[in-house]
């Protein structure tokens, strides 16, 4: 919805407000971006440079942050010494795997949820959404016990299944909203054109394909960023990047350069994916309650 420009009448006070607003914006921008800059910067610094701070109150000294000769040795070390290649693979398999499971099962379920009226549908729906909103710490307690008895703890299938607990309800919920917006008449037209029920359903899949793609990416993102499931269910054989990154914190010798490099490795791919599906992000992060 493009909104018309509203006429603004300038007064002294409103000019003051405007300046304040700009200042606020700049401060907020710096505060949002600074952790990223420091993360990336520190990941490319040598030990000594990383530990240098200006004197307290020496504002100009802050610029010394940018005074370093970049090195990629921490990144190299991550993969050479810390086995990050394997963790990266684990993260990829677990997140993509669970996203695929969620989206494939979710699409067919969401489709029927959207098209088929049955008694108790509201309750089923509430159950689905509540599983998504359940606190991970609470879910993980029984899940850990069950997975342990099935030998799923410390395995990638176990982790994929664990991620499905939040990705599948998410996919069903979001995709149902998507299917709801596709007129049923299109499928009916297809049936009149001579399509079977299944063929008619297939006809409308291209229409929701962008949404399916976007929610696949969001599912990957949620799973990739997870820490709790990964540290409990995945501990041992299925260590993912967030867990591995956290484990770099050793009581005696905290290697900040490496940790920051690991942070970049963990964050960068998701940042790119996030930009890719920018249009669906708000809907995805608010469970579809708000669309841009």
């Amino acid at each position, binding site marked *: 919805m493009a*909104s018309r420009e509203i006429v603004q009448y300038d007064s002294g006070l409103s000019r003051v407000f405007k300046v304040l607003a700009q200042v606020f914006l700049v401060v907020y921008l710096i505060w949002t971006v600074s952790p990223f800059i420091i993360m990336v910067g520190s990941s490319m610094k040598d030990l000594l440079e990383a530990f240098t701070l200006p004197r307290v109150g020496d504002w100009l000294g802050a610029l010394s942050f940018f005074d370093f000769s970049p090195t990629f040795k921490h990144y190299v070390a991550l993969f050479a010494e810390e086995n990050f290649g394997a963790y990266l693979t684990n993260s990829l398999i677990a997140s993509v795997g669970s996203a695929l499971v969620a989206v494939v099962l979710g699409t067919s379920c969401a489709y029927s949820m959207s*098209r088929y009226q049955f008694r108790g549908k509201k309750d089923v729906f509430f159950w689905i959404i*509540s599983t998504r909103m359940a606190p991970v710490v609470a879910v*993980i307690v029984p899940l850990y016990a069950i997975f342990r008895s099935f030998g799923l703890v410390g395995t990638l299938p176990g982790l994929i299944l664990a991620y499905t607990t939040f990705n599948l309800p998410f996919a069903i919920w979001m995709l149902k909203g998507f299917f709801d917006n596709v007129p*049923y008449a299109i499928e009916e037209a297809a049936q009149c054109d001579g399509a079977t029920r299944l063929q008619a359903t297939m006809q409308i899949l291209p229409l929701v394909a962008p949404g399916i793609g976007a929610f696949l990416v969001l599912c990957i993102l949620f799973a990739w960023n997870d820490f709790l499931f990964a540290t409990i269910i995945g501990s041992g054989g299925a260590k993912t990047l967030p867990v591995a990154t956290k484990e770099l914190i050793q009581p005696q010798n905290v290697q900040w350069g490496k940790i920051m490099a690991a942070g970049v490795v*963990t964050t960068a791919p998701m940042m790119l994916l996030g930009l890719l599906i920018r249009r669906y992000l708000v809907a995805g992060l608010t469970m579809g*309650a708000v669309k*841009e």
Partner: protein
Amino acid sequence: MQKTLRAKRASFSAIEEDHGYAARRLDYGPGALNEEPKRRYHILLMAPAILTLAAITIYPFFWLIYMSLHKVSVARSDRWVGLDNYARLFGDVKYTDGWLLLVKYSALCLTLEILIGVVLAVILNGSRFEKVLVTVFLMPMMMSPVVAGLVWYYLYNGTFGWYHWLFQSIGILGETSILADIDTAMWGLVIVDVWQWTPLITLITLAGLKRVPQDQLEANMVDGAGSLRNFFTVSLPNIYPFLLIAILLRFMDNFRFIDHILVLTGGGPGNATRILPVYLFDVSFQFFKLGRGAAIAFTLLIVTIVLGLILVRIFDDPKKQVASGEAGETTDD
């Protein structure tokens, strides 16, 4: 299956309309109904997802209840203890404090996020840089909470953390790191949450602001309202449902995500930041008292479900028109 239908005389009686157009209605029902078509198609499509979800949510839910009524240990078999696990929660100061801290933590986070988020949205709305800035502000949300925790752990560090230096330079902190002091540790967590999630509030508010009816704003201006009045009398009531959703979502996320807390303080110093989910994590996976943990988890779940019910209620409320509002296809004429 053929069933006879009782004639519905009442609904069939002649209806007299405005201009005296009386239509002929029937006063009998059909002899027999045709067999309903089978709905196998939809059930087949729904079954895999529903069954999977049931297996990984309902089954564990009953397990949770089972565990909460037992003393669960890794070595020996489970021992029935009845409601003992629950009873002990009442005497557990860490449990009750956990709730209080959770509420305190959420309240602090939400207040700041809403305040900053809404102000930011109002400034951004219609600004020249809206698109670019919104994209930049999305970045923290894409970051894994645990990585966010690690980065801020580094930034807060008492000897070489840049934000520690900043706080010292402004003069609000001494030598001690924000996380090491019982009085400030909670704020350290709040800052991280605010950093990561304020943009979400901003985005939601922006979406709401775009839907504020232009004619209402204009009518209000004609009635003599300035921009500030306009915001409070027209915009705010219109974005209120959006904010409500944002609040609930964030509140529930505070239950859901404790990743950064585990990294930053682990509940300390002392128990200053041991909000209930963190305490639950400790009981279950530090001390492996799974039965106790299950009892805590159960209470936490119930509260979440109630919150969820409220949220869904708001979703469904047609008057609020939060969702995009496309009406479903009606099949009848």
